[in-house]
C-alpha cells in the first residue's frame, strides 16, 4: 500500500465539468514547466501524509483488517473555515484521491501531457460505493434518481439540494451563476476552454487556480449534501424491487458480515437503521436468526448513518424473500431442524416428553408449514431450546433463584411447539370455549376492558393468517361481555401453558441446579 517512492502530489478535484475529474500534479515538475508558483491550496493533499496516516491506522485497526484513509488535516481545515463535515465525507474524498494516486511515476509524466479525464471514467455513485466504509451501500440506479417521484420531500431535507443532485448524477451545472471568479473577461469562453484545452498545462493550471476558490468553499458542503442525499435516496431505493434484489445479492455473498452471537452459528446479517431520520444513529446489523441488532464489528462503519438504510428495510427484506435460509450453517447438529421440532439437544438437559404438554391436542398437530406468515424454520432459528446460554459453575447450572442467576433467558427463548405462537387460532379456540358458559353481563367491567379488547382486535387485524378475517368479523360484532369472557379464558390458558413451560425449563435435568453463594 505504501509506496515510499511516489512523489509528493497535489490533487484537485473538479466538479464543474461534466464528469468529476481529478487532476494530479507533480508539483516539482509543474513548477519547472510553468515557471509559476503553484501555491498549494487549502484542500490540497499530499501523498506523504497520506501514507503515514495509513500506516498508523493500519497498525491500529489491524485486528479489524481495516485501512482507513483518514485525513485529519482536511478535517481541521474544514473546521477552521467553519464548515461542519462529517468524517465520512472527507474520508470519501481521500479514498477517491487514493484511487487516483495509483498511477506509477512514468504514467504520471504521461498524464501531465495527456488529458487526465480518462481516470474519471467512473461515476460519482461508483466512487461513493467503493469507498472504505461504504461497503454496505447498493448502487442506486440513475433512472431511480432521475424519477422525481422517488425524491419527493428530499429537497427540504438536504441543503444545496440541486447541486448535490447534480453531483450524484455527474451532471454539469447548467447555469454557471456561482462562478465566483469574475476577473476574467471571457468567462463563458473559459468554461468551454476548460473542457477542450485540458491537455495543456497552462490552461489546466489557470482553470485549477480558479477551482481552488470553489473547492475551499462550496465543494465540501456540496459533497456532504450529496452524500446525505444519496443516503436518503438509498433508503428508498433498497425498499424498491431493484434495490432489494441488489441487496439480496450482497446478502447472499455475505457482504454484511455474520452475527457475533455464538448460538446464531454465523447467520448472515443485514444493515438496518434504528431511525429513519438522519443524524441520530449509525448503521446497525440485524440478525434474522435472533431478531436482534448489533454494532458492526469494524469501526469504519461508525460513520455511516443508519437512516441511509432505514428501519423498514430489514423486515421488508425477509418478507420479500421468505424462502431464504436465515439460520447459520456452522458445525453443531442441524440447528434449523432441531429448533423447529421439540427435540432435545445434547447441550440441553433432557426435556419432559410431549405427553406432559398441557395441550395434547396441539401435539397431535404437526408443525405448521407457515406460522404467522413465515416458515417455522425461518422464524428466529437461532433462538429456543439448545440455543440459550446456560450459566454453569463446575457443571452445575446456576439457579434462577440465585442473586446472580440467569434473568435474560426469555430474550433468547422460543416455544418448542411453534403452534403456541398462533395467536389467531388460540384466540378463536378460546372464543369457542367462551361461547358455552353462561355469559356475564357486567357492563362496568366491560368498559374497563374495552380498550384492551380493541387492541386485541387490531392485533388480529394485522395477522396474515387466513382465519384472521373471520375472527376479526366476530370480534367486531361488539359483544363486549363475550369478549371479556374470552379474555379471562385466554388468560387462564396462557397461565396453564406457562406453568408447564416452567417445568420444562427448570424442572428438568434431574435437579442439578444449585443455589450458589446467595449470601453474597
Amino acid at each position, binding site marked *: 500500500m505504501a509506496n515510499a517512492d511516489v512523489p509528493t502530489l497535489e490533487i484537485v478535484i473538479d466538479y464543474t465539468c461534466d464528469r468529476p475529474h481529478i487532476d494530479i500534479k507533480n508539483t516539482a515538475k509543474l513548477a519547472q514547466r510553468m515557471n509559476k508558483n503553484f501555491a498549494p491550496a487549502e484542500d490540497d493533499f499530499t501523498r506523504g501524509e497520506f501514507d503515514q496516516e495509513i500506516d498508523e491506522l493500519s497498525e491500529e485497526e489491524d485486528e479489524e483488517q481495516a485501512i482507513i484513509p483518514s485525513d485529519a488535516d482536511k478535517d481541521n481545515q474544514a473546521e477552521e473555515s467553519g464548515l461542519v463535515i462529517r468524517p465520512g465525507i472527507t474520508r470519501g474524498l481521500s479514498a477517491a484521491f487514493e484511487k487516483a494516486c495509483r498511477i506509477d511515476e512514468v504514467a504520471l509524466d504521461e498524464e501531465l501531457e495527456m488529458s487526465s479525464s480518462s481516470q474519471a471514467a467512473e461515476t460519482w455513485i461508483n466512487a461513493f460505493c467503493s469507498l472504505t466504509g461504504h461497503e454496505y451501500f447498493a448502487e442506486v440506479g440513475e433512472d431511480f434518481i432521475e424519477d422525481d417521484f422517488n425524491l419527493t420531500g428530499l429537497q427540504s431535507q438536504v441543503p444545496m439540494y440541486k447541486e448535490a443532485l447534480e453531483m450524484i448524477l455527474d451532471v454539469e451545472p447548467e447555469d454557471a451563476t456561482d462562478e465566483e471568479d469574475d476577473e476574467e473577461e471571457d468567462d463563458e469562453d473559459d468554461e468551454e476552454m476548460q473542457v477542450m484545452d485540458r491537455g495543456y498545462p497552462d490552461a489546466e493550471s489557470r482553470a485549477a487556480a480558479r477551482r481552488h476558490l470553489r473547492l475551499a468553499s462550496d465543494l465540501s458542503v456540496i459533497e456532504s449534501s450529496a452524500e446525505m442525499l444519496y443516503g436518503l435516496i438509498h433508503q428508498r431505493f433498497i425498499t424498491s424491487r431493484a434495490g432489494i434484489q441488489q441487496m439480496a445479492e450482497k446478502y447472499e455473498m455475505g457482504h454484511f458480515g455474520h452475527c457475533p452471537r455464538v448460538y446464531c452459528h454465523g447467520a448472515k446479517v443485514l444493515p438496518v437503521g434504528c431511525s429513519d431520520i438522519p443524524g*441520530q444513529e449509525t448503521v446497525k446489523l440485524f440478525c434474522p436468526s435472533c431478531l436482534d441488532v448489533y454494532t458492526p464489528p469494524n469501526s469504519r462503519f461508525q460513520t455511516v448513518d443508519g437512516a441511509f438504510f432505514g428501519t423498514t428495510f430489514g423486515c421488508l427484506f425477509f418478507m420479500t424473500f421468505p424462502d431464504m435460509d436465515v439460520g447459520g450453517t456452522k458445525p453443531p447438529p442441524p440447528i434449523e431442524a432441531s429448533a423447529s421440532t421439540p427435540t432435545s439437544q445434547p447441550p440441553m438437559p433432557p426435556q419432559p416428553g410431549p405427553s406432559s404438554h398441557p395441550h395434547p391436542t396441539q401435539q397431535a398437530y404437526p408443525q405448521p408449514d407457515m406460522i404467522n406468515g413465515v416458515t417455522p424454520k425461518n422464524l428466529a432459528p437461532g433462538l429456543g431450546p439448545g440455543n440459550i446460554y446456560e450459566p454453569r459453575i463446575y457443571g452445575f447450572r446456576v439457579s434462577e433463584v440465585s442473586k446472580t442467576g440467569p434473568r435474560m433467558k426469555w430474550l433468547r427463548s422460543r416455544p418448542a411447539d411453534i403452534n403456541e*405462537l398462533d395467536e389467531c387460532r388460540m384466540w378463536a379456540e378460546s372464543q369457542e370455549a367462551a361461547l358455552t358458559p353462561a355469559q356475564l353481563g357486567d357492563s362496568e367491567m366491560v368498559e374497563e376492558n374495552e380498550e384492551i379488547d380493541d387492541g386485541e382486535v387490531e392485533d388480529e387485524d394485522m395477522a396474515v393468517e387466513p382465519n384472521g378475517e373471520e375472527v376479526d368479523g366476530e370480534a367486531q360484532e361488539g359483544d363486549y361481555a363475550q369478549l371479556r369472557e374470552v379474555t379471562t379464558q385466554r388468560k387462564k390458558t396462557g397461565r396453564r401453558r406457562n406453568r408447564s413451560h416452567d417445568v420444562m425449563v427448570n424442572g428438568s435435568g434431574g435437579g442439578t441446579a444449585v443455589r450458589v453463594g446467595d449470601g453474597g
Partner: protein
Amino acid sequence: MEEFASDTDSDYASYWRDWFISSKGNEYFCEIDEDYLTDRFNLTGLNTEVQYYQHALDLVTDVFDMEVDDDMREQIEKSARHLYGLVHARYIVTTRGLAKMMEKYKQGVFGKCPRVICESQHLLPMGQNDTANASHVKLYCAKCEDIYNPKSSRHNQIDGAYFGTSFHNILFQVYPALVPVKTQRRYEPRLYGFRVHASAALMRWQEERRDEMKERLRARGMDTGFDAEEEEADEEGDGEIGDEGEEDGLDDMFEVGGGMAQTQIVQ
C-alpha cells in the same frame, strides 16, 4: 505465532510470563503468580495433558536452561503456552486471580458487547468446554447473558479451556455488585412503523415468559435485577410491557405512530 520463536531465542530466559502476557493476542490472560505456579498441588493432573511437562514448566517459571535445538525449543514453547493456559483456567477462579481479572474486566480489556441494546457492556472471556482443544474462547455479556465470538481473529484462536466454563459465573458470585442492571428494552423489527406479526407474536410470548419469571422471583422476595424505572413503567402500564419506554433512542420516530400499531396482549 511464528514471530515468537525468533523473539524468544534472544530473551526467553527472562520473564517468560511477562513476555507471554504482553505479546499480541494474549491480552485476555492475566499473570499467574510465581508461588501459584510452583505449588505442585495446583498443577495436579496437568502432567498428562501437556507434552514435555517438566521442560514447559521450567520455561514458564524462568528456570529453563537446557541447550536444545530449534525444533525442540518450538515444541517446548508450544507446550509452555498450553500449560500456562491450563493453569490460567485454575488460577483465575482463585481469590487473587479473580481480583486480577476483575480489574481487566473493569478496564474493558475483553471488549464490549456488540448487542446494541447492551450499550457497550463489558465482556468476560469464557470457554464452552473445560477440556482443551474443544472450542475457542467466547465472550460473555452479563447484561444480555449471552455469549459472542470475539471480533478479532487473533482472539478467536485462543482455546476456551484456558478460561473455563465457570470463571465468569464465579466472578459475579464473588462480586455481585458487578452484575449489571438488566434491561427489558429490545429491538423490535418494524415495517413502516408497524410491528411484523411473526416476530411480534414471538416477542409477546417471550415477554410472557419474562413476566412469569419475575412473578416467581417476587414470590420469593427476590430482586428481579431489571431496571427499576422500566419495571415501574411496566407496573403502571398494567400489561403494557413497558413498550413505550423500551424504544428509547431506538425507533424514536415511531413513538407517536406506535399507538396506532399497538398490539398488546391482555395480561
